[in-house]
C-alpha cells in the first residue's frame, strides 16, 4: 500500500467567493496559504461546518457564573456534520492577490447536510481542509490526445485536468453528461454553438480556454445531444479515428457511467484513467473505509482491495473490478 508522495496537511482556508452556477451546483473559491503543489484528480476533505456557529472557545461569564465555574464550559459544542466531505479540485492556481496563497476551486452539488452547509458560505468566511489528497491523473505523453468524460459531479476534476492539459500543450476533447439542462455546472462560451450532431466544438468556456473542444449530452435531451454520455463518447471516438496508442481516456462520474465508459474505451484498446468515489471518513489512508476492488494476481482469489483515498482516487481502468 503506497502512501501518497505529495506532502499533505491541515490548512485554514478563506472563502473568496461562493456562487451558485446552476440549479444545485455551487462554485466555491478558497484561498489557502502555503498549500502544497496539487494535481488534477486530487481532492480535499472540507470541514462542512457553519462558520457562523458559535466558536469552540468558552466566553467569559461574569454574572451568572460569578461563583459557577461550570458555566465556563460548554457541553453542546456540536459541529454538524461530524465528518469532513471529500471534493475534487476543479482548479488550483497561485492566488494573484495574496502572495504565498493558492486559489482552490471546488464545484459541488447540494445533496445533503454537508453540501448545504457549504452552499451557505459567504465571502470572507473561514473553513479548514485536509489536502491535497490522493494521487491525481497521469498526463498523456506528448502527441497523445486526451478524452475527458465527466458526468454530473464528476465534471469538476475534468476542468482542472483541462487546465493542466493546456499548460502541457496536450490537445483533447471533453464529453460531459448531465441529467438535465439546469444541472450543467459549466459555462457556455459566447457565440460558439454546440454541434447538433454531437461533434466537439469550443462551446464550453472551461474547456475552450485551454484549447479543448467539448460535447454536452443530457439524459432528457434538454441540452446538447440527447442520451447517455456513452452515446456521445462513441461518436467522439469514432470521429477522432486515431490509433489506440494515441488516445487516453479520463473519466469521473457515477460508477455505472464510468464502467460503461471504461468498457467502451477498453474495447478499443485505449488507456483509461478512472477517478473513483467512495464514502470516506478520513481521506488520508487510516480508516480503511474507502475500498474498491482491483485485480491482484498474487492474491489467492485474484483480487484485493485498494484505498480510493490514497491508492486512488485515480486507477487504471484495467485493474478495477466493477461490482
Amino acid at each position, binding site marked *: 500500500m503506497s502512501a501518497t508522495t505529495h506532502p499533505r496537511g491541515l490548512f485554514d482556508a478563506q472563502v473568496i467567493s461562493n456562487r451558485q452556477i446552476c440549479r444545485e451546483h455551487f462554485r466555491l473559491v478558497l484561498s489557502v496559504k502555503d498549500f502544497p503543489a496539487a494535481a488534477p484528480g486530487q481532492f480535499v476533505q472540507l470541514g462542512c461546518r457553519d462558520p457562523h456557529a458559535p466558536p469552540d472557545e468558552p466566553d467569559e461569564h461574569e454574572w451568572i457564573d460569578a461563583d459557577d465555574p461550570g458555566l465556563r464550559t460548554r457541553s453542546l459544542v456540536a459541529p454538524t456534520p461530524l465528518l469532513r466531505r471529500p471534493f475534487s479540485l476543479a482548479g488550483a492556481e497561485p492566488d494573484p492577490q495574496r502572495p504565498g496563497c493558492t486559489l482552490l476551486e471546488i464545484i459541488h452539488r447540494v445533496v445533503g447536510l454537508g453540501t448545504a452547509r457549504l452552499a451557505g458560505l459567504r465571502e470572507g468566511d473561514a473553513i479548514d481542509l485536509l489536502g491535497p489528497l490522493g494521487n491525481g491523473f497521469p498526463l498523456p505523453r506528448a502527441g497523445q490526445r486526451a478524452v475527458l468524460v465527466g458526468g454530473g459531479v464528476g465534471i469538476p476534476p475534468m476542468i482542472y485536468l483541462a487546465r493542466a492539459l493546456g499548460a502541457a500543450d496536450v490537445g483533447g476533447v471533453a464529453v460531459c453528461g448531465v441529467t438535465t439542462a439546469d444541472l450543467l455546472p459549466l459555462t457556455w462560451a459566447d457565440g460558439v454553438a454546440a454541434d447538433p450532431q454531437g461533434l466537439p466544438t469550443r462551446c464550453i468556456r472551461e474547456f475552450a480556454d485551454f484549447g479543448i473542444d467539448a460535447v454536452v449530452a443530457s439524459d432528457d435531451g434538454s441540452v446538447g445531444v440527447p442520451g447517455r454520455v456513452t452515446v456521445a463518447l462513441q461518436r467522439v471516438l469514432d470521429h477522432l479515428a486515431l490509433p489506440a496508442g494515441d488516445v487516453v481516456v479520463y473519466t469521473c462520474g457515477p460508477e455505472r457511467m464510468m464502467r460503461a465508459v471504461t468498457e467502451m474505451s477498453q474495447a478499443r484498446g485505449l488507456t483509461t484513467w478512472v477517478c473513483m468515489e467512495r464514502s470516506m*471518513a478520513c481521506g488520508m489512508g487510516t*480508516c480503511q473505509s474507502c475500498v474498491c476492488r482491483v485485480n491482484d494476481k498474487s492474491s489467492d482469489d485474484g483480487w484485493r482491495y485498494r484505498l480510493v483515498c*490514497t491508492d486512488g482516487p485515480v486507477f487504471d481502468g484495467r485493474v478495477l473490478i466493477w461490482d
Partner: protein
Amino acid sequence: MKNPLTTASGTSGYAFEYGDFVDLRLLGAFVTKSITLHPRKGNAPPRIIETRAGMLNAIGLANVGLEAFVAEKVPQLREMGLPVFVNVAGTAIDDYCQVARRLNEVDVVRGLELNISCPNVKEGGISFGTDCGQVAGITSAIRAAAPDKVLVVKLSPNVTDIAATAAAAVDAGADALSLVNTFTAMAVDVDRRRPMLSNGNGGLSGPAIRPIAVYMVHRVYSQVARKHNIPIMGMGGIQTARDALEFLIAGATALSVGTALFVDPTAPVKILDGLADYCRRHNLSALREVIGSLQFPEPGKGYKSTYA
C-alpha cells in the same frame, strides 16, 4: 507515557499514515490498527456511514496480517520514538496467541491491546468480549504468550455489566484496561429497505456515545480498577479537552482519540494544550490530580443542587 494522549486503534493506521498532519512524537503512545494472524480483506464497501453525532463502521478488521506488519510496519514504528501498542485481534484463541508470541519478540512493541470486542466480525469476535469466562480465558492465554509486554484488554461496551468483564480481565492478568470499543448498531436505507452498510451492522463511535462511555469508565474505575490500581485508557467520542477531562475525572489514566482524528487530525495536540490550560486555571501541579476525582453522589441522595 509522557502524556495521556494516544490514538485509538483503527483510526490512525499502522504507523506514519497520519504523520503528515501532526507530529506523532507529541503523543503519549501510539496504538496500531488491529493485527490478525493472516491478512484480512475486510468487508465490502460501504464500510462507514455518518449518523447523528457519530458514525458507524464495519471495516471488518481489514489488515495486512502479522507477517507483513512485522516486516513492513515495525521498522517504521521504530522511527517513531514513542511507546507502541499493537492492537491484536482474531477469531480463535490460538490465532491471538500466535500473534502475541511473535510480537513478544519485537522490541519496539511496548504492549499489546487485546481487541476482544470488535463487533463487526461474525466468526466470534463479539463473544470473547461479552462473556466473563471467555474474557478470562483469552486474557490468561495472551498473558502467557506475551509475558514481556504490557497487556491492555480492550473491553466491549455491548454488555450488561462492564465491571464484570473488567474484573475477569484483571483477575486473568491484564495490566491495564481500555474502553470503550464501538456499540453494535445499524442504519437503514429506508428507500431500499436494507442496511446502509454492506455488512448489515456496524460499530457506533463518536460524540453520540460519549455519555455512555464516560459512565462505563467510571463504573470500571470505581468497581474494579481503583482497588487493583489498574490504569484505564478511556475513549469514546473524545473531541476536545473538555471531553478528555470527563474521562480523566471519571477515572481514566490515559485517553484515546478515534473518530475525532478524521475530523481534525491535530485533535490530540489541541487536547494536550487544553489540558495544560485547565491545570493552570485550577492550580493543579499535575493532571494526575484529577484522575478519578469525580464526586459521585451517595445512592439516592443527590448532592446539593447547582442552583444553590
